[in-house]
């Protein structure tokens, strides 16, 4: 195992003492196969215990360690040091307010997630004695990809529309709404449409596609958004041009 000294430029911000965020340079010796998160952990353990950032699983499952690495939203646990040359610039996720150092305030995303009701709303309730809600593999395939989201918010940091229009519900929340809408056991689409078929829902998306490019789980939120647009359009035409057709 070979080691090399890596230079990191990390955005620091302490709301109690700093009026503005600033960069701080760290030189830290790292193993060749380390990721950015390993480097941050080593800085915290050996150089500067005040450095704050979120992380938990170190295996791209928890979705906590999203940050901007050289300007791109990435999971720090998946960003291999060897893929970068020179000084590596580490900043908190774009488009979110900074709480401290690399920790962002994520309330906006959490509120939006709640609004789209990302849980099964059964078509009709049935007693447990009647058994499970069955589903065929084909029915599962319709939404499985969208279940892979780990709520890391990289897509929000990548989305220029979210940067421009803070009220935009955004990629992950829409993809998750779509996940339940596509589920054969679910009957909650009408309620979710109230949020995602609104102007602040899919219609604020201009199909930049950056969300799908940065998504570490290949959820393809941009694809979900376009599908929701088409379905919402069909709804609209049915409702306004063919009012006699029942929804």
């Amino acid at each position, binding site marked *: 195992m070979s080691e090399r000294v890596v230079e990191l430029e990390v955005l620091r911000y302490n709301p109690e003492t700093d009026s503005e965020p600033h960069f701080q340079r760290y030189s830290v010796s790292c193993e060749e196969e380390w990721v950015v998160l390993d480097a941050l952990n080593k800085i915290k353990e050996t150089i500067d215990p005040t450095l704050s950032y979120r992380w938990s699983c170190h295996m791209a499952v928890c979705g906590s360690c999203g940050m901007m690495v050289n300007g791109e939203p990435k999971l720090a646990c998946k960003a291999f040091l060897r893929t970068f040359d020179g000084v590596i610039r580490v900043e908190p996720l774009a488009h979110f307010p900074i709480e401290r150092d690399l920790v962002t305030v994520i309330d906006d995303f959490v509120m939006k997630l709640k609004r789209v009701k990302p849980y099964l709303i059964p078509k009709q309730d049935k007693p447990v004695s009647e058994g499970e809600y069955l589903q065929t593999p084909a029915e599962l395939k319709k939404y499985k990809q969208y279940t892979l989201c780990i709520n890391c918010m990289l897509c929000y940091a990548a989305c220029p529309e979210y940067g421009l229009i803070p009220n935009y519900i955004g990629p992950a929340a829409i993809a998750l709404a779509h996940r339940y809408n596509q589920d054969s056991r679910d009957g909650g689409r009408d309620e979710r*449409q109230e949020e995602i078929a609104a*102007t602040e829902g899919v219609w604020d998306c201009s199909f930049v596609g950056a969300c799908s490019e940065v998504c570490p789980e290949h959820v393809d939120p941009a694809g979900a958004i376009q599908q929701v*647009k088409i379905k*919402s*359009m069909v709804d609209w035409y049915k409702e306004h041009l063919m009012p006699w057709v029942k929804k």
Partner: protein
Amino acid sequence: MARSNKPIVWGPFAAGGTLTAFLTPALILLTLLAALGHAPDLLAYERLHAVASHWLAKLVIVGIVFLSLWSAAHRLRITLYDLGMRADALVATVVYLIAVAGTLAAIVYLLRI
């Protein structure tokens, strides 16, 4: 929150986008071939002119022209918004009017055939 009325303008945009994705490359190829004097007989000017004189063909052509222009207009509107032009209502009115004007022009020329 109320559901958006955006589908009115988005529907023809999506349809036009799909159309142009298939038609535009074919048109460019055909134009190039024609310019080089190699247009296939079936697509020679006189034949196309004859096809366009049928009312059904006229209807189809108007549909294609409208959807393509609308799609381009809508794309332009969104692009301008993304570039920082915030006068969306004005931009929308102008670009959609251009698309409609182009469609009207197509109708006028087709009716003259």
